[in-house]
């Protein structure tokens, strides 16, 4: 058992305690502060999982802006929770079922940091991303790119017998000197976000759309006078 794994486990135990404390806290100011602590601990965890960018976003959004928004809400509404605790059993069961399905889905994933994971070895992703980055306009690697493209083209016909993979990654225009996306998305960042990680980006956009719809549904027609409550 490696040291970083033990640290991760302790960290996740602390995260769990924090989450339960957030839900159970009656003092809403305390709940806001503890949810901020939750974000800080998750930032630690993301950093330990080598996702530094995610960690920084988590710290800035979760511990920074969200806490301020929550406390701004508390200034308007009051800091004590109205005691009404009904457990909605169908909702709880649905949540547990979805959680179980998600955990079941992770069973098929490769181990963390596995160098032989499909994301690292799949010829379509690993090879072409490297080429796309190398063929930046004016870069020195243009000739090396041509050479590697020839090599990759030879390997490609062996690696991709089936047409199903071609169809979901844009159209193949038949030119031997171009890969699937060349000419369609000349910009490298766009190429990675839209072409290589298109499904990822699409569902991220869906999440943002759902959040927007939720906010509209929640805030529509609620323009009464807000309750004045004391804070501290």
């Amino acid at each position, binding site marked *: 058992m*490696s*040291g*970083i794994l*033990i*640290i991760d486990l*302790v*960290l996740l135990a*602390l995260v769990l*305690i*924090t989450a339960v*404390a957030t839900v159970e*806290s009656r*003092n809403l*100011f*305390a709940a806001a*502060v*503890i949810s*901020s*602590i939750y974000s*800080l*601990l998750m*930032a*630690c965890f993301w*950093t*330990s999982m080598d996702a*530094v960018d995610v*960690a*920084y976003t988590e*710290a*800035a959004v979760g*511990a*920074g802006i969200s*806490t*301020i928004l929550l*406390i*701004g809400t508390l*200034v308007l509404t009051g800091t004590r929770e109205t005691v009404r605790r009904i457990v909605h059993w169908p909702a709880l069961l649905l949540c547990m079922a979805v959680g179980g399905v998600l955990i079941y889905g992770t069973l098929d994933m490769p181990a963390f940091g596995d160098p032989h994971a499909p994301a690292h070895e799949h010829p379509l992703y690993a090879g072409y991303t490297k080429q796309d980055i190398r063929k930046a306009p004016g870069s020195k690697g243009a000739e090396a790119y041509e050479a590697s493209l020839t090599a990759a083209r030879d390997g490609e016909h062996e690696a991709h017998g089936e047409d199903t993979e071609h169809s979901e990654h844009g159209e193949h225009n038949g030119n031997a000197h171009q890969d699937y996306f060349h000419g369609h998305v000349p910009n490298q960042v766009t190429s990675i976000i839209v072409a290589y990680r298109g499904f990822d980006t699409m569902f991220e956009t869906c999440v943002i759309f759902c959040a927007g719809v939720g906010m509209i549904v929640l805030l529509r027609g609620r323009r009464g006078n807000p309750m004045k409550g004391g*804070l*501290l």
Partner: protein
Amino acid sequence: MMLAQAESMLHTDIPTLVGGLALLFGIMLLLVRAIAGPTNYDRILAMNAIGTKTALFVALLGFITERPAFLDIALAYAILNFVGTIAILKFIRHRRLG
């Protein structure tokens, strides 16, 4: 080969374990104060201190994995923590962020 591997594991793992667990123990004590804390100022102080511990944790990981760029990230965390705490305190005092 095995010996060298075990030795390198020892060198990277023992400082990680000791430093990380010490930091997490500190976070745990602060968490007790944040959850049980009698006044809200205890909670704000606990949150601020946990933010500092987060910056330290990032710096520790950067030190262990020999990536000095993590120190800059730790500095950014420290600034973020400071600004966040100031914003919360201002909000409580003035009821707005002005």
